[in-house]
């Protein structure tokens, strides 16, 4: 199979520091007026003193094949948006070369070009044209788009009177009915309610699966990335940090984010209860936990004053940040935290059944249902589960399951 997109040594430079766009003509006039009197001391004569340069993309190379769905992940400022902008020809690269075969449509933001004064019907045509559809194409798909967006009653109402949900649904509906060979999608799923997000994911899957469309998909939603893509690239500070199987790249991404810590400590907060320490006590050193051995968690809670009705719970999350275990303790069931000072809560799992892999902890401190939450603390203590002395034919792998259960077989 041929590559539809071939990116070679792509780099993009921006100048930061002084925002010269707003400076106006004065600077430039001033520069030219003074030019004859200035000493030609450096090679930059005739140019402005450049601001600090910043490489938003630095020597990126990758290939996308026909029908492939590729995820692009990275933290804010890693260069994802710049990459998509260069790919969709909105801005030029500074160095390098991209070869694209086929028609490209990019959805860098749903609803681009929507005009609030125009009706839904008018905006469908306008937005379609902006995204590169011909009038005939839009006409042919018009009913489908309206049905998908579920706005048929309001089709002749100006979109400024739409609810934000309707607006987003309409915008996504137009975009989803594009039929280019290559689709570039940025964060469309960050919008809309859960129900509509599900529908969008379904549509995306349909587009990439059935249509044989090549899709480049940027998102912070790891679940969406994991379900939609098989391959991913990870950008970090403009560099290509890793690329390969989605699972591996996501794991790399999540690990790159936080420093590994087995003990969490924080100063007590004066005005509300807070978590001051969290610690995992694993069965071996260096935060290594043997499967089926006991696993102990300890939390210090600081209470500025004693309270009734406190609740505390924590989750164990796997390396994809999916919660695997949830454990809790309520004052109503067993009195706790009723006096001021620091209290230690200990929780022991007698036989840890977690599968191999890396895990972290998220804790919640609050009141009864409906009461405000005092604290949600993330990435508290990291540990890794290993399995020794239990043979398996295929090797232990974290992606097969989250949890190993004792079971009795009859064959």
């Amino acid at each position, binding site marked *: 199979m041929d590559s539809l997109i071939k990116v070679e040594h792509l780099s993009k430079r921006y100048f930061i520091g002084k925002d010269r766009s707003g400076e106006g003509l004065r600077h430039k006039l001033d520069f030219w007026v003074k030019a004859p009197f200035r000493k030609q001391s450096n090679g930059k004569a005739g140019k402005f003193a450049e601001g600090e340069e910043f490489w938003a993309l630095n020597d990126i190379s990758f290939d996308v094949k026909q029908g492939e769905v590729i995820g692009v992940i990275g933290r804010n400022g890693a260069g994802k948006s710049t990459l998509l902008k260069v790919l969709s020809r909105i801005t030029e690269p500074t160095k390098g070369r991209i070869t694209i075969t086929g028609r490209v449509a990019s959805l860098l933001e749903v609803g681009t070009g929507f005009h609030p004064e125009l009706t839904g019907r008018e905006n469908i045509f306008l937005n379609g044209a902006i995204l590169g559809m011909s009038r005939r194409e839009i006409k042919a798909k018009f009913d489908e788009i309206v049905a998908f967006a579920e706005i048929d009653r309001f089709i002749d109402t*100006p979109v400024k009177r739409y609810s934000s949900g309707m607006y987003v649904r309409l915008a996504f509906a137009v975009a989803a009915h594009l039929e280019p060979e290559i689709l570039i999608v940025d964060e469309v799923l960050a919008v809309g309610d859960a129900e509509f997000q599900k529908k969008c994911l379904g549509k995306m899957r349909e587009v990439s699966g059935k249509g044989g469309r090549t899709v480049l998909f940027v998102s912070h939603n790891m679940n969406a990335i994991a379900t939609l893509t098989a391959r991913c690239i990870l950008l970090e500070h403009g560099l290509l940090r890793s690329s390969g199987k989605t699972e591996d790249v996501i794991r790399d991404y999540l690990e790159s984010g936080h420093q590994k810590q087995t003990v969490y400590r924080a100063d007590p907060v004066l005005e509300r209860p807070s978590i001051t320490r969290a610690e995992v006590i694993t069965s071996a050193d260096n935060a290594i936990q043997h499967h089926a051995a006991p696993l102990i968690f300890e939390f210090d809670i600081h209470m500025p004053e004693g309270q009734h009705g406190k609740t505390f719970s924590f989750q164990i999350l796997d390396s994809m940040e999916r919660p695997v275990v949830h454990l809790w303790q309520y004052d109503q069931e067993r009195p706790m935290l009723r006096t001021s000072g620091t209290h230690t809560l200990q929780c022991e799992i007698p036989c840890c059944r977690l599968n191999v892999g890396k895990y972290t902890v998220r804790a919640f401190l609050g009141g009864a249902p409906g009461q405000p939450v005092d604290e949600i603390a993330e990435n508290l203590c990291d540990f890794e589960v290993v399995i020794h002395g239990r043979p398996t034919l295929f090797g232990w792998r974290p992606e097969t399951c989250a949890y190993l259960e004792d079971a009795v077989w009859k064959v």
Partner: protein
Amino acid sequence: MATLIIEAGRTEKHYWRDLWRYRELFGFLAWRDILVRYKQTAVGVTWALLQPLLTMIVFTVIFGKLAGFPSGGVPYPILVFAAMLPWQFFANSLSGASGSIVGNASLISKVYFPRLIVPASAVVVSLVDFCINLGFLAVLMLWYQYVPTWRLVLLPLFTLAAFAAALGVGLWITALNVKYRDFKYVLPFIIQFGLYISPVGFSSHVVREKFGEVVFMLYSLNPMVGVIDGFRWAILSGDVQPYWPAFGVSLALVGIGLASGIWFFRKTERTFADII
């Protein structure tokens, strides 16, 4: 399937083909601006008429009655309005085009298309007002029972010249305005001065008779002088001819303005998304 290569500094080989491919978007943008223009206004299209109408009345009183400029036997309101047509179109196009890229910033930074279609569609929108004014001119001529000659059939040609003049200057100002927002403030000056410098309220013969032909050649460096003279010649039935050499200079400047405008716009449009 078409293969596209994106590289630094690569002059877009398929620019004009792309421009043609995006002609529908061009139409849609113009259509959007026309639709939006008079939504939620009480008197709607009348606004297009009001400004040139009032200017015409004021100019007729000041230049025709008070100053007593000659009109060559033409009713003074018609003389003024024949010039108001291209001038108003020119002025509206400039103000429409100059802010068009900045006004469509979200579009520019999110989607690719040849950026040229944005100011061009702004100029097309002014063409609507132009047609309304043209209708009013017809009414005015009926009122004065003024009969034009065969030369009226050449009006589309001069309209084309007006279009080229507006687009050429418009492209320069649009591109400059993206980088230097100063032009937002410069433009009203250009338009206000231009209205008095160009022969709108008076006939260009006044200038020629008063200052001689050398000065008039210089005067014709203003491309709108030629365009306005052309309009008057086509619409009015008097046998007053434009001064053809100066007319040629004006039209040549229209051509240079358009060519250089396109060149400059294309040179800068690649960086629009970065600096907007």
